[in-house]
Every structure is written in structure tokens, then in C-alpha cells.
């Protein structure tokens, strides 16, 4: 038993925090401030923007997985009426990429192509139809090269190098090796050792809005770029870098974004080429990707081969983990260096572990580049680890839920690899889903073809260290308080639907005792809003939220000082609530919020404040541990109930119970929605989704062929929120938008074992895969002498 139960500020799942929030905003359910604009179709997305004289750009894309470009002939296209210009790769030779050590990409291919679908040239025309026809008139001559298409190919030194001339003479972008404790001793102490390989398929994000960019050259030579991005800051930097412009001369605006899930984290050819063409043609240029092109743009889940060996003591504790992973990354690095770390660094969570070793490889192949998809890099190993735990429980005759529970790390723990963990609600999550699902009585008792499975997981709340080294704030928020009482909040964040606009408004409103709808949020505009690094690594609530609370506190201090002077009390004696500032012990002695602002402006001058957030330095014992550490970690447990038709192999997920420790729910409905969205995406990866290829050619580049769950395939999801009030989160909040996806696939896999007696180690669990495994198991059983199972 840990001391977690006695921790101050600890709250049990499915209740509110216990103490009511002063401003009355925290922990509410219900609408977000920008909800109606989206529901009523009034929100403007990038593709909804039109400028006078605007032309559209369309890409010519590679038909070869790996080939030298002998020639590009655009003359046929340029001769067509309505075509106004073009760009080819060599006009933009500067390499770029978010990760400074792995900038291997140009906006369009130069000299050779590295995957089918890679942009080669862009034609600008007066409308989409003309651009389409013009693109077909462009002639590209190729000289094919042998393609590198599999993990084996990528590891074979005799294969051609996809990035010849790069520092590393191979198709291995990055190999990571880390070892902690004493692996041999750990395995020697094991009662049971489980060893197996797993194959996790690639999958892609499928945001409903495709990637769009619109660029306009201003008369003074400055540039405005509207982009459907998750990361305005990085796009801003890279576009300036590639175009050779000063960052200050580019204004990057992120309009409403139709979701990303990690798929809009990179700066894309859309952004850079639209900006380039706007300068070259002196006309506004919009580029809207078609659905098929999004499948080539990709940056999704790395297909990953894994080998996992784990030792367990009699009591179910983990004595050692040895793990190897090979992630097939496609033609460019994207965030692949980070992926190679994330594959390994979270394995010592959430179970106590002293002896750990991992080796991961991120490989280049001639396919669309992989990158960060929700649960980045941590999804794949979680399947292997959580299945190993169930397998060990079976071998040791232990209950899988109890075994997990008993081995949870305690709050305020440092893991063997140097992750400093603060709040931990792991046990509460497990208890919530085990109880609600009837796991203990129903597992193993549902009859043939039906089963229950449990899995647990942990995830980060932003990266401790910024992507490019600096000592600046990772999130900044600026507040302007008008004498009308309107509060305007400026933030460089990028709400992609996850609700970060509302999160910021709610935190500010909570501190100032007003309503979230009283706060106007201006976000993602580099000329108006202070920097935020972006919507990735589940960082926004934690980091931008902290910056927001800091700015709000400064405003509050001024208001409190002015009101206190007026009422003749100490500032600390005041409460901010209900659009009023009043004496806590005598609520009738009050001023309206507007009057408080007026008084404060009289006392201090115009009211505007900024707040920044930078994680406090958390020294690690391991200097090399720079990717993975986070200021806090979220925890999830879920139980899946599945039915498997043993005749057809069709698997149906009937229900998911999910409990997530988000630290504190700023808005309960939004948190639930994030958790449900994660589970949904996990169900898709478990049952249907796979970025499949024939050779180097994408085999399923449409929404009809690439199967994602519709309302009919999505299970009922019952959600529990666990609140642990993280000491460093804004009002104790952590994250909810990614972590919950980690345990969905393993919960389903473990449920499938309960249903069929088979360990399925390769998602998606399609009827073909399931039937093949069932008949293989039947054959194996027929060959074995009878034994009790």
C-alpha cells in the first residue's frame, strides 16, 4: 500500500474536487465558449477564407517510391488558360524540420523522390478545376532506384540509402540504447519470464479537415500565412527559415482547425509553397489538400516491430524488462527522433521497475513519412507490455487487476530511468473500471467468444525540454482588461477541437470571478499572441494553463488592491465570484467586476498582464534523458468487453469502461469528450485501421478504403474522471487528450484472449487475422496431448 491515500489534496474518482472553486467555474460541465460558432457553421476554417485575386495551388506528386528526377516539364501546364504560375523543388532548397537534429526535408522533392505521393511541383491556377487539369499536363521523367520498403530492407546495408550524403551512412535515422539497474540480476530473480514479439501496424490521423494554407504578400513585402496547423510557432519558424525571411516579417495565423490528432504538427509543403508562390506570383495563393493527398502527407503511427522480455516474481512484481523496437518511419524524419525515445522511455510507468533496458530504432523507408499520432510512440509498446502482464498473471495464477494494482508506483516517485512522477491516480483508475465492469466476476464467465480485458497506462503532460534549446517560456498568455469589463486573452495556442480555448477562458474566469464567456480568446496569431509551442505532447492544459493562471493572478492582484483600498480591507479578505468582488465574510460589501476594473485602472493605469510558463528544472540522474521527462504524468485504466464470432472472425467491442486521472477536470464535459475520442481512436486501431501498401503504393488512400469506425462500430463508452490535483498543474490539472488512448488496444487484446484463449499480437484484429489465429490454435491443440487449460 502506498501513502497515496493520505496525500493532501487527494480526491477520489467520480467526485468533484471536494473544495468548491472560489470563482465557481472549475469542474463545471457543459458548453464551451466557442461551441456555437462551430455547431452553426460560423467558425472560419482556413479553406473558408477567400482573398481578392486569389489563385489555388495544386501539387504534382511522385508516382515512384524511389527515383531520380530526370526532368520536370511544366510547359504544357503553363500553356493552359487559367494557369498563372508554378514552383518546383529547386526553388526552395533549404531543408527544414521541427526537430533540429533531423532536418532532412525540403518543401518539394529536389533531384529525387523518396515516396509515392511526394510533392514535386506546384501549379497555380485560377480555380481548382483548372489546377487539376494543369497538374495532369506536367511531365516528370524518372530514373527508378531500388526501393526500401520494409524493416528488413531498411536494416540491410546493401540497400540504397534514402538520404545519401547524410551524416549517417544507413537507413537508420536513430538508434537509442538505454539501460538502468541490473538486467541480468532482474531476470535471475524472476519466477516467470515472458518473451514474445509484437507487430503494431501503421495508421493515420484522418482529421476531417484536410491540410490547408493561404498566403498573401503585403505591399510592404511582409507575408501573412493562414495555416490549418497545430503548431503555429514551428510553422512560423520554418517558413521564415526556408523562405529566407525574418520571422518578424511573417504573420502566421491559425484559423479554426478541423482537428489534427498529431497530423498537423509538422510544417508542410502546403504552408511553405503557398507562401513561396504568393511572393513569386504576387497574388494570394491557397492550397487545399484533397483527401487522397492527406494519406500521402501522413505523419501517422509508425509501424513497429517489438520484442519484449519481462521477468516477474512470484507476487507478480516486475523484476526486469528488456525491450527492442524497430519503427518503420517512411521517407523523412518528421518527429521520428522523438518517436525513438518515446518507444522506450515510458515503459517504467506506471509499475514499479528497477531493471530496464531498451533499444529502439527509427528507420527510413520509401513510404509516406510517419510522425506523431495521438499517444506518440507510446501506443505500440503499451500493447506489448500490458499483454505481457496478463500473460504473466495467467502463468503465476494471479488476478491481472490485483497484480497491476499491487505494482503501481506511488506518488512522488522517481522511476529507474529518471522520470519524476508527482501525482498518481493509477489505483483509483483501476478500481473504477474493475468495479464498474464487474471484471472480477464476469471475466472468464461470459462464455465462448466473449471476454473482458483490462489494461493500464501513463502518459506525459508536455515535454520538460523544448524541441529547440532555449531558456524561454514554453507558453505565454497575455491579458488585456478593458474598462468595459471585457477581458481579452491572447495566447499562441492552437485549439484543434480539444477545447483549449475554453480551458484558457475558464481558468482566467475562475481567477477573476467572472464567466468563461466574459473572456474573449484570441489565439494562434503570431502578430497578436505571445508564443506557445503548440498542441502536441499533451502540453497545452498544463503549460498554457499555468501561463494563464499566472497572468490572471497578476490582474487579480491589481483589482484586489484597488477594491481593498476602496472597501478598507486587506486584499486577502476579498472573494472574486459571480462577476463581483466582495468581502468574504461580508458578501454585501461588494463591487461589480466592472467597477473593480475601473478602480484598478484609476490606481494603476491601463490593465494588461502577461504570464509565462517554463517547467521548473527537474534534475535527472541521467544526463542523456532529455526526451521523455515531463512535469507531470496522467494515468488511465480501461476494461474492454468484446464479442468474437468464432465462425466469421468478426470482433465487436461491446463496451469500454475507462477511468482517467487528468489531475483535475477544468470542464468535465470536455475532459470526457477527450477521453471518449481517445478510446474511439484506439478502437479504430485495434479493429480496422492500417496504412497498407502494395510495394510503395498506398493501398487504401480514401475514406472508403481506409476503414475507420462509424457510429455503428463505436462501442458504448463509460467514462470516469479521477482527480489527483497535481501539485504543479494549473489548479491541479494534467492532460486528457492523448493518454487515454494508450490502454485501449491492449484492453481489447486482453479481452480477446478472454474470449478465445488466443494472444493476438498483431492489430488490427480483422476477421482474416482472427480466423487464421483461431485455426492455427485449433491445429496446435489437436497436435498436443490433452491437458487442463
Amino acid at each position, binding site marked *: 500500500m502506498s501513502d497515496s491515500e493520505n496525500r493532501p489534496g487527494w480526491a477520489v474518482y467520480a467526485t468533484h474536487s471536494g473544495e468548491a472553486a472560489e470563482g465557481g467555474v472549475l469542474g463545471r460541465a457543459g458548453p464551451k465558449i466557442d461551441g*456555437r460558432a462551430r455547431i452553426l*457553421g460560423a467558425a*472560419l476554417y482556413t479553406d473558408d477564407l477567400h482573398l481578392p485575386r486569389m489563385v489555388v495551388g495544386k501539387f504534382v506528386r511522385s508516382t515512384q517510391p524511389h527515383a531520380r528526377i530526370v526532368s520536370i516539364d511544366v510547359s504544357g501546364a503553363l500553356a493552359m488558360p487559367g494557369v498563372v504560375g508554378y514552383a518546383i523543388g529547386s526553388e526552395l532548397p533549404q531543408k527544414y524540420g521541427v526537430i533540429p537534429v533531423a532536418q532532412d526535408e525540403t518543401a518539394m522533392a529536389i533531384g529525387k523522390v523518396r515516396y509515392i505521393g511526394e510533392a514535386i511541383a506546384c501549379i497555380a491556377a485560377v480555380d481548382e478545376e483548372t489546377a487539376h487539369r494543369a497538374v495532369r499536363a506536367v511531365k516528370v521523367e524518372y530514373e527508378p532506384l531500388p526501393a526500401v520498403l520494409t524493416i528488413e530492407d531498411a536494416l540491410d546495408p546493401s540497400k540504397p540509402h534514402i538520404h545519401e550524403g547524410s551524416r549517417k551512412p544507413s537507413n537508420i535515422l536513430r538508434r537509442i540504447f538505454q539501460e538502468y539497474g541490473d538486467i541480468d540480476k532482474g531476470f535471475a530473480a524472476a519466477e516467470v519470464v515472458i518473451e514474445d514479439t509484437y507487430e503494431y501496424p501503421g495508421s493515420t*490521423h484522418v482529421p476531417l479537415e484536410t491540410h490547408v494554407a493561404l498566403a498573401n504578400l503585403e505591399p510592404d513585402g511582409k507575408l501573412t500565412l493562414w495555416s490549418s496547423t497545430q503548431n503555429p510557432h514551428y510553422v512560423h519558424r520554418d517558413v521564415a527559415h526556408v523562405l529566407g525571411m525574418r520571422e518578424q516579417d511573417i504573420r502566421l495565423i491559425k484559423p*479554426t482547425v478541423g482537428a489534427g490528432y498529431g497530423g498537423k504538427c509538422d510544417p508542410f509543403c502546403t504552408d511553405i509553397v503557398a507562401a513561396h508562390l504568393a511572393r513569386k506570383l504576387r497574388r494570394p495563393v491557397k492550397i487545399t489538400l484533397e483527401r487522397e493527398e492527406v494519406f500521402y502527407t501522413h505523419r501517422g503511427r509508425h509501424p513497429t516491430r517489438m520484442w519484449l522480455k519481462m521477468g516477474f516474481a512470484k507476487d507478480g512484481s516486475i523484476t526486469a524488462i528488456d525491450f527492442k523496437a524497430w519503427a518503420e518511419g517512411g521517407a523523412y524524419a518528421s518527429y521520428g527522433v522523438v518517436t525513438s525515445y518515446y518507444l522506450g522511455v515510458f515503459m517504467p510507468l506506471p509499475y514499479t521497475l528497477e531493471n530496464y533496458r531498451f533499444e529502439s530504432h527509427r528507420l527510413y523507408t520509401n513510404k509516406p513519412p510517419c510522425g506523431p499520432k495521438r499517444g506518440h510512440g507510446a501506443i505500440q509498446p503499451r500493447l506489448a507490455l500490458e499483454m505481457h502482464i496478463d500473460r504473466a498473471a495467467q502463468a503465476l495464477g494471479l488476478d491481472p487487476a490485483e497484480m497491476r494494482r499491487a505494482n503501481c508506483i506511488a506518488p512522488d516517485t522517481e522511476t529507474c530511468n529518471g522520470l519524476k512522477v508527482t501525482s498518481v491516480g493509477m489505483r483509483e483508475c483501476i478500481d473504477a473500471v474493475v468495479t464498474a465492469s464487474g471484471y472480477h466476476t464476469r471475466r472468464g464467465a461470459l462464455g465462448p467468444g466473449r471476454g473482458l480485458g483490462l489494461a493500464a497506462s501513463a502518459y506525459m503532460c508536455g515535454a520538460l525540454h523544448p524541441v529547440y534549446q532555449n531558456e524561454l517560456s514554453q507558453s505565454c498568455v497575455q491579458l488585456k482588461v478593458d474598462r468595459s469589463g471585457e477581458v481579452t486573452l491572447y495566447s499562441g495556442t492552437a485549439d484543434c477541437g480539444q477545447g483549449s480555448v475554453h480551458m484558457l477562458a475558464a481558468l482566467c474566469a475562475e481567477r477573476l470571478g467572472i464567466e468563461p464567456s466574459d473572456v474573449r480568446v484570441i489565439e494562434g496569431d503570431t502578430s497578436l499572441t505571445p508564443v506557445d509551442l503548440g498542441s502536441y505532447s499533451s502540453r497545452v492544459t498544463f503549460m498554457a494553463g499555468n501561463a494563464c493562471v499566472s497572468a490572471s493572478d497578476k490582474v487579480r492582484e491589481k483589482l484586489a488592491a484597488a477594491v481593498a483600498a476602496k472597501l478598507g480591507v486587506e486584499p486577502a479578505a476579498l472573494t472574486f465570484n459571480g462577476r463581483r468582488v466582495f468581502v468574504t465574510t461580508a458578501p454585501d460589501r461588494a463591487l461589480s467586476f466592472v467597477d473593480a476594473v475601473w478602480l484598478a485602472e484609476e490606481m494603476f493605469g491601463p490593465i494588461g498582464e502577461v504570464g509565462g510558463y517554463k517547467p521548473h528544472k527537474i534534475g535527472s540522474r541521467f544526463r542523456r534523458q532529455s526526451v521523455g521527462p515531463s512535469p507531470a504524468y496522467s494515468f488511465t485504466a480501461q476494461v474492454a468487453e468484446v464479442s468474437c464470432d468464432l465462425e466469421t472472425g468478426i470482433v465487436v467491442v461491446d463496451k469500454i469502461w475507462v477511468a482517467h486521472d487528468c489531475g483535475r477536470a477544468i470542464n468535465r464535459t470536455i475532459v*470526457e469528450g477527450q477521453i*471518449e*475520442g481517445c*478510446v474511439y481512436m484506439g478502437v479504430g486501431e485495434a479493429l480496422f485501421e492500417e496504412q497498407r501498401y502494395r510495394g510503395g503504393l498506398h493501398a487504401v488512400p480514401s475514406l*472508403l478504403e481506409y476503414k475507420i469506425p462509424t457510429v455503428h462500430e463505436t462501442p458504448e463508452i463509460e467514462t470516469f474522471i479521477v482527480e489527483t490535483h497535481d501539485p504543479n498543474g494549473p489548479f491541479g490539472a494534467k492532460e486528457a487528450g492523448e493518454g487515454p488512448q494508450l490502454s485501449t488496444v491492449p484492453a481489447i487484446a486482453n479481452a480477446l484472449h478472454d474470449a478465445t484463449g488466443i494472444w493476438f499480437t498483431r492489430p488490427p484484429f480483422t476477421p482474416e487475422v482472427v480466423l487464421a489465429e483461431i485455426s492455427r490454435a485449433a491445429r496446435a491443440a489437436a497436435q498436443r496431448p490433452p491437458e487442463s487449460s
Partner: protein
Amino acid sequence: MSDSTNEAAGERVVALTVNGDSVRRLCPSSRTLLDFLRVDLGLNGSKHGCDVGDCGACTVLVDGIPRLSCITLAVEVEGLAVRTIEGAGPDEARIVAAFDEHVASQCGYCTPGIVLCLSHLYSEDPAADDEAIRQALGSNICRCTGYTKILAAARAASQREASQPAQGGSDE
């Protein structure tokens, strides 16, 4: 330019009602209803998700029936009444309020199409049950919500929810 068909340019005059207003426009006969609404009329609430009929983001109501505007030509709806999300009115008020309350719209790209599908459903069956709701939304992809909040909102917008507790059962 005359009102008649300009075959040489492949253009035609399309006359129809959009959100209650009569509209006459000359447009290429190959123009999709989705582009006609978005580009010619500036009604951006209907979205491009795939342009080939796979996602439902472009759904509008044509004479009250949901239709995928990306695979419908503007000339096909000549003389008919089109309703887009911009035309949402009292008929949709319950749905919009429920979507707001349940935060059933995350990124919002799918939402206008879904709201219109539900509007059609409730116009035919004001007390639609869960199964009917699922059927009505079967061709609308939402990649954000996992449908849970959408179903909750749709349930709340159905008269069934309002009528059931009071009457202890449905009177259908």
C-alpha cells in the same frame, strides 16, 4: 449574359431556393452543389471532407432530405429548396442547444452535416430512439468525439427524452 443555357461555355443558370431565399446564378454545369454554396454563395458551413461522398461533412437538406452536396451538381437541384446550416432556425434550436450543452462538437468539421441529418430525422420522427439516431448518422464521420457526446446530445434533442419520464413510456 442571357438567362438561357450557355452551352458553349458549359455554363447554366441555376435557380433554386437556399435557406428560404430565391437564388439565380450562372455557373458551370460541372459545379458541385458544395462549391456552388461555398464559392458562389459564400455559405461556408458545409464542409469539404473528402469530395467523393464518403464522410458526410458536406451534407445539406434538399427539399428536406439529407444529400451529399459534394457529389451533387448544382444543376441537379434546379428548382428545389436547399437548406444549409446557415439556415438553421427554430426546427434546429433543440439540436443546437443540446450539441452545445453536451460539447458534441469538438473540432466542428462534421457538426453542420450531423445537425442537418438530425433535423431531418426529427422532422419525420420527433421522438426518434437510439437506433433511429444511429441509422440517421451512419454516413457521417466524426473523428473527434467517439460519437458518445453526439449520441447524448441527439438523445437530449429527441422528444422521446422529454416525453418518457413524464409518461413512463412511449405512446407510439
